[in-house]
């Protein structure tokens, strides 16, 4: 159908539309009109991607000078491929409707094997790739730095974007890294020796260039050709590379000195935590390395590798890592912390020193993106509470909206199970974690559900260790054997290949009618990347609240930083983080309006307003007061009732006019009125 979105003609490749899709497009258009950033939460399975694509492409066609490019970032390879398929569908619709072959060029970059840095990326109207291509400075520099300013950037599935940012800026150094780095430096030295004998002019030319400094880069940045590299600070662009590391030999010598210093730092007996300035002071005191040459380290190494015409950069990953670290640590006095741990907490007898250089501020990596591109859209099925993302990513959006899922029948059934049948409070909190009664009641819940839920059930635990212990305990108590009478059991392991196989078998068992249970882990790969549509997930059980492992020093440092810099209380952030993962887990089961599923939150803490309130609106509004603190039996009764209702035939006609609209229905005054209520502004 063709839609009129506030005066913009939008081609939408379906015969019907969900009301929330229309609402979503309205908000999106307003964001683009304002040339600002937006945060939009809309449940998965309501056609978010196609709404985004339809509107932005229509916008691009209508205002080719205002928006020149769409950069669509998603997280996993299948998601990227899905976007491409939807795009293909849209393009086919365009050529069918307009009769002209479309001249849109879309480009997908996925996985390194087909990494394409062809100049075509500059001309493509649409680029689809993974977050890293934009957020990880090491790749963004190669792929994305020349993208036009008038682009619209979309981060889909962005609920974890802060972690991606942090990951891309953090570095870990172990003894092994340093050993490999040592080899790299030796190789560099040898190569320089050889080149000096054969082609000394090359090195002289490089030296001359370095005197000129990084002027080129500076010009480019000022004239707005490049996406800024957060690793390369503005200031150094105006300066020449310092004399101390300008010649190749000097630089190699400098690297050696830095390496020796790092080695000495790893020889510790106790945990050390310090800030970047402290580290710089120490390195100056110990080996007289100044801040300035450190800041040029990454750039200087790239130049050297280019000059030496080294083909295989991968071999030099260790020395690259060290020099990136050098530049980062000397550039940012804030937002990072250095933690040196002499051994793993679990195995204090085995020396395994690691230097963690951890980014605590996700806004550092994403800052250039917000600064450069006129519109950045952060969207996902679970972004609640919406206001926290602008705070931790440090940007000011023009629109923030959460959309509900309009439903002709209530196809999701969130239940909070807080008690066992014996009234024992259910919780995964630390104090009762080993409690036999809790584990038994959890087992009972799963057993009862396995008897009444058809096909697939997915259960998530708060951590892998917790799951292992519970599984062992259930095994000893014979609970698993009893569950096997109803369904087959598959369990996520730490091995991705093994888990993939278990997943496929799980789906097979759901497919052939036998039914299966998948035991999995929140924050794991399954919880983040695998959908359990229809019969692959008729119920999701979240055992416990998936708080992050709080004993980690890195996390503690980050929490402190958040408190000091953003005034976000530790508990607020931890709860937010736990709830977004819980929402991700339970949301895996509902992938559309024709789908249905139970969402069982098995922890009494979910009943509290501070937890419940952080769930996405589309889940929250279906939790009624009667289902806040259920016993296992009560939950089973409610679930039975729900499943029986859902088993009734559900046809398109049932949805029409309510949660599914024809063009005529959409244009009615009354409906437009209703649609304005779908978007919930914050």
């Amino acid at each position, binding site marked *: 159908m063709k839609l009129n979105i506030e005066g913009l003609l939008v081609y939408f490749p379906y*015969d*019907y539309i*969900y009301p929330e899709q229309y609402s979503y497009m309205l908000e999106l258009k307003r964001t683009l009109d304002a040339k600002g950033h937006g945060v939009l939460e809309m449940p998965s399975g309501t056609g978010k991607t196609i709404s985004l694509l339809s509107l932005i492409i229509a916008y691009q066609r209508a205002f080719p000078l205002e928006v020149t490019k769409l950069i669509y970032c998603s997280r*996993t*390879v*299948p998601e990227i*491929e899905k976007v*491409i*398929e939807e795009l293909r569908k849209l393009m086919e619709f365009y050529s069918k409707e307009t009769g002209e072959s479309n001249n849109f060029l879309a480009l*997908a970059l996925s996985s390194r094997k087909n990494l394409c840095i062809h100049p075509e990326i500059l001309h493509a109207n649409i680029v689809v790739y993974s977050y890293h291509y934009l957020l*990880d400075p*090491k790749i963004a520099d190669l792929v994305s730095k020349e993208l036009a300013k008038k682009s619209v950037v979309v981060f889909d599935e962005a609920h974890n974007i802060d972690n991606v940012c942090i*990951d*891309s800026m*953090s570095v*870990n150094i172990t003894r092994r*890294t340093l050993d490999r780095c040592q080899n790299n430096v030796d190789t560099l030295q040898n190569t320089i020796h050889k080149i000096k004998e054969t082609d000394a002019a090359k090195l002289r030319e490089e030296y001359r260039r370095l005197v000129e400094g990084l002027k080129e880069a500076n010009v480019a940045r000022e004239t707005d050709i490049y996406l800024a590299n957060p690793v390369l600070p503005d200031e150094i662009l105006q300066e020449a590379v310092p004399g101390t590391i300008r010649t190749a030999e000097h630089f190699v010598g400098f690297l050696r000195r830095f390496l020796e210093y790092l080695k000495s730092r790893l020889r510790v007996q106790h945990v050390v935590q310090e800030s970047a300035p402290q580290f710089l002071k120490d390195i100056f005191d110990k080996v007289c390395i100044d801040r300035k040459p450190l800041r040029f380290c990454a750039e200087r190494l790239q130049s050297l590798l280019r000059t030496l015409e080294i083909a295989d950069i991968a071999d030099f*990953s*260790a020395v690259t*890592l060290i020099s990136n670290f050098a530049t980062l640590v000397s550039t940012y006095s804030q937002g990072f912390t250095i933690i040196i741990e002499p051994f*793993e907490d*679990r*195995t204090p007898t085995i020396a395994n020193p690691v230097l*963690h250089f951890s980014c605590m501020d996700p806004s550092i990596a994403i800052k250039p993106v917000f600064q450069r591109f006129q519109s950045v859209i952060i969207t996902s099925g679970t972004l609640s509470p919406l206001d926290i993302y602008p705070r931790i990513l440090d940007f000011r959006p023009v629109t923030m909206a959460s959309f509900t899922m309009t439903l002709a029948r209530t196809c999701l059934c969130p239940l909070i199970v807080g008690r066992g049948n014996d009234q024992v409070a259910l919780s995964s909190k630390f104090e009762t974690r080993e409690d036999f009664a809790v584990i038994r009641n959890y087992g009972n819940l799963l057993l009862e559900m396995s008897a009444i839920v058809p096909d697939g059930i997915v259960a998530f635990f708060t951590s*892998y*260790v917790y799951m*292992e212990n519970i*599984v*062992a305990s259930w*095994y000893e108590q014979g609970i*698993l*054997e*009893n569950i096997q*009478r109803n369904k*087959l*059991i*598959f369990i996520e*392991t*730490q*091995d*991705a*290949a*093994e*888990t*993939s*196989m*278990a*997943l496929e*078998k799980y789906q097979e*068992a759901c497919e*052939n009618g*036998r039914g299966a249970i998948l035991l999995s882990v929140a*924050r794991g*790969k*399954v919880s983040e990347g*695998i959908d359990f549509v229809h019969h692959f997930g008729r119920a999701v059980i979240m055992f416990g609240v998936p708080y992050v*492992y709080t004993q*980690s020093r890195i996390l503690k440092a980050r929490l402190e930083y958040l408190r000091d810099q953003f005034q976000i209380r530790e508990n607020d952030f931890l709860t937010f983080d736990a709830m977004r993962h819980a929402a991700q887990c339970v949301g895996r089961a509902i992938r*559309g309006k024709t789908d249905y599923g139970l969402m069982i939150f098995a922890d009494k803490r979910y009943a509290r307003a501070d937890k419940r309130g952080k769930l996405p609106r589309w889940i929250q509004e279906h939790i009624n007061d009667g289902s806040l603190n259920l016993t296992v039996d009560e939950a089973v009764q409610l679930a039975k009732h729900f499943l029986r209702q859902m088993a009734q035939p559900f046809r*398109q006609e049932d949805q029409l006019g309510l949660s599914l609209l024809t063009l005529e229905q959409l244009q009615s005054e009354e409906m437009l009125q209703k649609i304005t209520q779908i978007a919930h502004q914050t």
Partner: protein
Amino acid sequence: MASLSEEVLLVVKKVRQRKQDGTLYLMAERIAWGPEGKDRFTVSHLYADIRCQKISPDGKAKVQLQLVLHTGESTTFHFANESSALKDREAAKELLQQLLPKFKKKANKELEEKNRMLQEDPVLFQLYKDLVVSQVISAEEFWANRLGGVNNTDPTLFNNKQEVGISGAFLADIRPQTDGCNGLRYNLTADIIESIFRTYPAVKQKYSENVPHNLTEKEFWTRFFQSHYFHRDRINTGTQDIFSECAKQDEKGLKSLVVQGVKNPLVDLLSLEDKTLDEGYGVSTTQPSTSNANRTVKESSNYAIIKRFNHHSAMVLAAGSRKGETPADQASETSSTDGNSRDSDFFQPPVKKVKLQEAIEYEDLQRENRPKTVALNLKKSDRYAHGPVPLQSQQYTTSQDIINSVNYIRHEMANYKPNLTQVVSSTAASSAIVALSPGGVLMQAGAQQAINQMVPSEVQGELKHLYVAAGELLRHFWSCFPVNTPFLEEKVIKMKSNLERFQMTKLCPFQDKIQRQYLSTNLTGHLEEMLQTAYNKFHIWQTRRMMRKT
């Protein structure tokens, strides 16, 4: 009658039957006895017909074996070889013991099937009553081509009956119970053993290797209950244990499965992430991976449990579908040959393509793309029932045409002048009208009122049954022609007598009955005609045969 291809399983000489010496043969499908010196069997029973065998008590002078048939008849064999009578009898008994249950199932199934057919088909049931119960033909004859049809037309139904899967919890059903004196008792049934064998072929192999040569059955299962199959948390059972090899084998199987990878790219966690961070980058918030080396005992036993549950589920699943390796793979394979050429620059394996398409599909946003099945809204259902009338001879007329033709006819009628020279005389006309009226000479055939108005429904029903029965018999009769085998010859003679018997026992009483009720005897005329035709045919055939013989 004995076809040569029959496999003879056992031959026992010197067996008496009705005081006659002879030889007993046990064959693949039947048991037979022939008198000495003659090469034909006077006694032959299909195993399927035998209900049970009985033997004489050990102390008795005569060593006998009695076969009781389903029909209630029985046959007794007397083993008369003095030196080995007992041994012979035992041998025959043993063999029968093995054979009978096999056929019993089949026999029962056949009986069931017959029962079912009779219950479901009232016409057939009536026919059965008319023909078999009244002993016009034997039950065997009656079923001869019916059941055969059932068995032959749909052999898949019998051979490929649906495989029953295995319960995931078969090991849980072996509830160990303390026997009160420091021991455990495990309940093992044949079903459970079968489940174990089907799920774990490795165990089956061990079983056939070791039982009963190295271990007794009991020892074997005792060891099984001590193995990792039963105690999933056990890590290393003793190396000399026969099941440690199984464990290794299982491990290997699991590994090869894992190495094979998954077909559905959407569940492949290995290629999920576009780019894992390079080594050394990222925040390691996850707890350090537990490599094999530094696991505690508890951890590795937990790990073993998880692994074994996955393995167990996979094996159970595989056991259920092992037989019918679905042709799904083929389908996807063939589809890869076509299509996809248009995105040569962006090649995707077809499975992936299909899965992706599925994943992005919003069925409710699209118009239902299957052909719409709108219920027919018929204004004149009789017109629909009579089907379309061929169009070619039809010309559509406009209302103006109709008005014109009406005017024309009216005009013609007004100006009608009878051509008096050509008309028939009034007497001839009236006699023709009489002849053509109901009851008239020419309307004799058509004058018959519909049978349902003439005779009471009870008689109608009876007539219907007679028709069905006669039809069935005639079918048997006519199916014998051309008579080209001795078997058919025999049958055709039998069928003729059947027909005659039918006429005598069924048709004639019916005729008497309708006569008593003063109904038209015409009712059975057609039946008689049919029978007569058959008799004529038979006579022709018979005289021809006689001529040929003389």
